[in-house]
């Protein structure tokens, strides 16, 4: 039995690099805004107000957290397995597309069948995209970085075709789908806000993924492959099959995120449904140190930044790009603080043997 202080120290050690990275990035952000002639104090207090100022702002922060949790989980799972899935964006869009197809065209099905079919197809849409990239990598040696980025483009173009063509609203006026039927919408959690039950699904899936990765033999094998595929193969693990499975799970997770964004927030499919959640998901996963539960606070932090950045532009006329700069800087600092040099420095300071 470890002493509570020891556990606290371990946790601090685990979170410290991420926290330091964020604080340093904020410091750079402060320098940047002073350079533009704004008071850093005013900027940060506005950021804070925008993200947590009252119940409504807080609900918006949570709302922005949800899609990032899904893409973050997708990226964390694949990176843990040693695959660079940059395709969460496309898989996210695929899920959004499928939920719209079912929500608009098949909503008169018997409800349980509708849910089952829709959920399976959403998952499959992302999983198949992942499997395609996985198959290309395992059978033909195509780098998954390239293939998944390219697949993003293909899905985006296909989505554009869908909302201009077969999925376009019945009135045929604008490039958007019809509204999803009520049955396909997620229930609202908090009257007066837009918070939907997707936030619960996000947390549950994070816990499930944690169980899979850290408590099941399957997850252990994935992590072994991520650490050293040669050792994994030597230990008798079918590496190819596991990698393709990881691609499928990762794609499926991102697709569910896209479906939840449509079913919970917008209620319609548009071309610009995602402002790059798939790519921000990479940053979230890195900041969360590729841990399904660790990335929950990371996603929340990025959600808060996004939410606060709106207030910056609204109240101060400061471009919301600043929030993106802070996000980017955070990633750079995470990478810096993950280096062995910093780890050793930290261990010395915290007296960890």
């Amino acid at each position: 039995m470890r002493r509570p202080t020891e556990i606290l120290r371990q946790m601090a050690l685990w979170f410290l690099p991420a926290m330091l990275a964020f604080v340093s990035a904020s410091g750079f952000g402060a320098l940047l805004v002073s350079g533009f002639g704004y008071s850093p104090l005013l900027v940060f207090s506005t950021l804070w107000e925008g993200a947590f100022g009252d119940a409504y702002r807080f609900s918006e922060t949570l709302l922005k957290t949800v899609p990032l949790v899904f893409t973050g989980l997708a990226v964390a799972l694949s990176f843990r397995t040693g695959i660079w899935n940059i395709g969460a964006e496309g898989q996210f869009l695929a899920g959004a597309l499928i939920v719209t197809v079912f929500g608009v065209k098949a909503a008169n099905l018997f409800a349980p069948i509708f849910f089952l079919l829709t959920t399976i197809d959403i998952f499959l849409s992302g999983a198949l995209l992942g499997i395609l990239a996985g198959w290309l990598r395992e059978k033909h040696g195509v780098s998954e970085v390239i293939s998944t980025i390219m697949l993003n483009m293909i899905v985006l173009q296909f989505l554009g075709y869908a909302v201009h063509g077969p999925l376009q609203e019945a009135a045929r006026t604008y490039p958007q789908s019809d509204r999803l039927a009520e049955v396909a919408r997620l229930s609202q959690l908090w009257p007066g806000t837009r918070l939907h039950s997707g936030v619960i699904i996000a947390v549950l899936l994070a816990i499930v993924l944690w169980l899979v990765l850290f408590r099941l033999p399957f997850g252990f094998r994935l992590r072994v492959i991520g650490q050293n595929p040669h050792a994994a193969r030597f230990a008798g693990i079918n590496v190819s099959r596991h990698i393709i499975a990881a691609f499928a799970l990762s794609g499926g997770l991102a697709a569910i995120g896209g479906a939840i964004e449509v079913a919970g927030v917008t209620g319609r499919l548009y071309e610009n449904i995602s402002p790059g959640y798939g790519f921000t998901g990479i940053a979230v996963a890195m900041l969360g140190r590729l841990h399904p539960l660790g990335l929950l606070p990371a996603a929340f932090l990025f959600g808060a930044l996004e939410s606060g950045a709106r207030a910056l532009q609204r109240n101060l006329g400061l471009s919301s790009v600043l929030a993106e700069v802070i996000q980017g800087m955070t990633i750079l600092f995470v990478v810096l603080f993950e280096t062995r040099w910093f780890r050793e420095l930290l261990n010395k300071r915290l007296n960890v043997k």
Partner: protein
Amino acid sequence: MKLFSKVLFAFFVLLFISSCAKEKTATNQFRVALLSPGPVSDAGWNAAAYEGLQRIEKELHAQISQIETKTPSEFEEAFRDYARQGYQLVFGHGFEFQDAAAAVAPNFPKTVFITTSGNTVRPNVAPMVFELEHATYLAGALAALLSQSGKLGMVGGIEIPPVTSTFDAFEAGAQSVKPDIKVNRSFIGNWEDAGAAKQAALALIDQGCDFLIHNADAAAAGVFQAAAERNVLVFGTNKNQNDVDPQHILASCVSNIPAAFVEMAQLVRDGKFEGKIYRLGMPDGVVSFEINPQLQSQIPPAVMTRLEEIRRQIIAGTIKVPSKV
């Protein structure tokens, strides 16, 4: 533990400082906000809206604010935030803002939400629709009066009501001065493919059309190329395109977006706003028909007089220009 507690301490100090900051209290000044779907530095759609907002600041002495909303999920949030801060008027610059405006509006009856184009109407939500039809009607009349072959051509992007409506008006304008005129239309199915637009334009010219009009956005470049190659005259649409090819673009059908913003803001400020579709056209000074000065000499004075007469009648409302949107 030292480093950790230092960081923690700094964090809480920051927290404390930030919680001391108070929000500004609302003033009685007229406040207007704009939700733009893209950067206002785009020298096009969004820049025009921002220019309108700046004119509102200058001409109506309003306090203004603008936010770039990239995805539909941000629309509702931004509308709500401005309404909560007591803004009297919030513009959503595009059809895609309709749902969000309708969702937020019932909770904020003191705020007016205006979308650029669309058809969603609530007591405090209204779309403003530009009646480019007024200008294309004039273009049709001018083309019919000058045409030698008695055939006119139209090249459109995607066959959607806002586009077909401008073509219907062009046709109606042509037939109003020459009932037996033939008008052919062609759609390329997108807004970008200048090559397809050029082929469509060449095909129309081969059919004998000696005047072309487009409503094809960026693909219109192909229409202008075809016109230059075969030396026929064309009309520009949406913005003043006369300078694109001064030798072949006879005139442009222009919607003046900034003027529309000022017009609507004035209505809201003076308490004259109603929940209805606002059609802004030539009588409001929002839509105009700009003849290319370099080609003015090609229009005989008699035709010019006739054109002026039609323009007057459109503004006076004695000519009903057909419009589907």
